[in-house]
């Protein structure tokens, strides 16, 4: 497997959806190609960072405005 071919398969690899044979090929490639290993790790980190970036809790006043908005609209 060449470096360029790896790129197309990375999401499936990280999601565990890649065919086991291709998965082995990809892992063998990474054993011999450190830049590809670093690339895969940084892609994995990108996903992890977004996954765990906590969103701000909804401010109380937004809750109250939503409540008022729905009360008014649902009366109409």
């Amino acid at each position, binding site marked *: 497997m060449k470096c360029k071919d790896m790129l197309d398969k*990375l999401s499936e690899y990280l999601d565990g959806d890649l065919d086991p044979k291709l998965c082995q090929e990809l892992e063998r490639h990474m054993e011999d190609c450190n*830049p590809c290993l670093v*690339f895969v790790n940084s892609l994995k980190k*990108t996903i992890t960072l977004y*996954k765990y970036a906590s969103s701000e809790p909804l401010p109380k006043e937004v809750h109250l405005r939503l409540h008022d908005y*729905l009360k008014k609209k649902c009366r109409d």
Partner: protein
Amino acid sequence: MAMRMLRNQEDAEDALQETFLQVYRGLRGFEGRSTFSTWLFRLATNVCLMKIRQKGTEPAQLLPLEEYLPQHEEGVHPQIQEWPEKPEEVLLNKESREKMLEALGKLPADYRAVFILRDVEGFSNAEAGEALGISVAAVKSRLHRARLTLRGMLAGYFQRKEI
């Protein structure tokens, strides 16, 4: 989700109100064919996409992905540097969080929505496809391009960063 899609508090609040109004009005028609959360996110995503289109602020549909990929030439491998080891420290850093949001905002809205549903909200490919009204193959393809593009947009920042 609305904040990540719209990156503007006022627009996100409008989207929240509109979504819950649609939930209220549509609740009787909800037949339970999908889970309630998939249905809720479908409404929310559509409200956000509509807002983005109305404002005309959507980035170009086609991602210039090649700009964000390592450029391989025959026999020469591009230099790729390690990123910081501790994601939790990155997330405590306000500047890093802003960079991440900025990068997300540069994705075309259809790609952003797929990425948020799959990688942030934890939907499966099938659920994200159902929420967005697209095939699983389209979800996978957009998600892959979105991930690679985000990595590429953040690479310059994180490779320089020492934590």
